[in-house]
């Protein structure tokens, strides 16, 4: 059933392995099979050595809040119903250059407006959880 949310395409040329990973409850990052350079978002060529060979490595799913916003209307309808809600950018513990955008939630399947925005702090440690939306498992973040 349509959720009204915008969702990734799990068959995306570059990101399909990432979304296959979230479906298994794993956070994967693309890495160059030749030089090992990790890259996020994924792309076809390694910017460090220009190899197109790649592999996917599992990360811990731990990180900290790098920045966040609190979105207010006007927004697309499904999102406007939940406003104000938070959006966070998380820096992953494996590298200061690996970041993911997501939402801070109080429960793995809780709404994106459940955490009081006034309590959110840059630097807070978080850990990844996954929630199924339609046919895709979306990463989300809970306080660690």
């Amino acid at each position, binding site marked *: 059933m349509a959720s009204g949310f915008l969702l990734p*395409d799990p068959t995306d040329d570059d990101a399909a392995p990432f979304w296959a990973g979230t479906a298994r409850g794993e956070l994967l990052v693309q890495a160059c099979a030749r030089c090992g350079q990790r890259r996020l978002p994924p792309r076809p060529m390694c910017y460090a050595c220009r190899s197109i060979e790649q592999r996917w490595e599992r990360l811990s799913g731990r990180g900290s809040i790098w920045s966040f916003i*609190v979105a207010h209307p006007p927004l697309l309808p499904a999102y406007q119903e939940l406003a104000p809600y938070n959006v966070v950018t998380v820096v992953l513990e494996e590298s200061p250059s690996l970041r993911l955008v997501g939402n801070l939630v109080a429960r793995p399947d809780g709404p994106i407006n459940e955490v009081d925005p006034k309590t959110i702090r840059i630097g807070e440690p978080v850990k990844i959880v996954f929630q199924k939306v339609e046919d895709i498992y979306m990463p989300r973040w809970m306080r660690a």
Partner: protein
Amino acid sequence: MPPSEAVKLIKDRTAIAGIGQTMFGKGLPDSELSLACQAISMAIDDAGLKPSDVDGLVMFSMENGREVEIARNVGLGDVTYFGEIGYGGGAGCGTVGHAAMAVATGQCEAAVAWRARKRSAKASRPWANVDHRLGGAQQWSRPFGLLRPVDEIAMLARRYMHEFGATRDHLANVAIAFRKHANRNPHATMRDKPLSREQYLAARWISEPLCLFDNCLETDGALACVVVSAERAKDLKQKPVYVHSFAQSIPQQHQVMTNYFNDDPLLGPSYACAKRLWANSDFQPKDVRVAQLYDAFSPLIPLSLEGYGFCKRGEGATYTDGGALEWPDGRLPTNTAGGGMSEAYVHGFNLVLEGVRQMRGTSTSQVGGAECCLVTSGEGVPTSALVLRR
């Protein structure tokens, strides 16, 4: 960075000889193509040229009216150079710079650059017209509710405030300065609406930490300019405004708008653009007394002040204190017609025209004695900038 070889060909070799703009408003009845044709027509008249003199066209990739439509509506002659620049608000100075390069290299003799836009209708906002399923860069941000340009910039703004101690008072400095200039500009959308610090601080949130007044306007309108050789400009109707230096940049590992995935997301495109711009310029930041800085959102101003070298990294917010951006006594009167936040938001092309007016001496907030004017395009996207000289 040493000056490029192109400097010999570009620096002061061309001039903006004519400018034109439609009225700014909401719900204008004319189409974008019609608005574009009107602004271009006015720019040609302003220069004292005939439509058949125009043989070059440079436009934004996002423009809805195409070159062929412009040419057969305005009645241009044979067009021998045309091109377009991508990335929305980053393109404005780029179109003028490409026009200057085309004229300087003999590919055409009179080139028009323009932007026409109808954004006041809600359905015309690009972020509201998205597919349910997203690929590419958008899949890493939009599903989580980071939907609008303001959300994307707010994420950087919060981090900037955290790293450098910037506050909402600094952002208010920006909004209030530009509003004061708009209040002096009879063509500005916000000419009759003053803005106090109290109003700013009480405004509704759009995307915390950004409020309503940290955002640009949504405007219908069009603007255009004509570029010819410096020699020819001297014989035309208006005082020539020389294209002194021009640069563009896509910085390393840049991602458009959601630039969160490289080593230092707060080093925006303006840094790389500024290196080339100043390397090719006889003027340096210390020589600049008036600027038109791209202001889709207020935090872009401190980022641009840093990137273009008016202060050190992290000092852009405090730079705005004490009325620094305000005409007439600020150390760098900025967006002297009101900018995107208070004059009109036409993807920054109104900043180009205000730069021209400053160099002609016809701004409604004229900065006395300014030899040059910096004009910049979108920070946060692949960008461009100009140094105009009188």
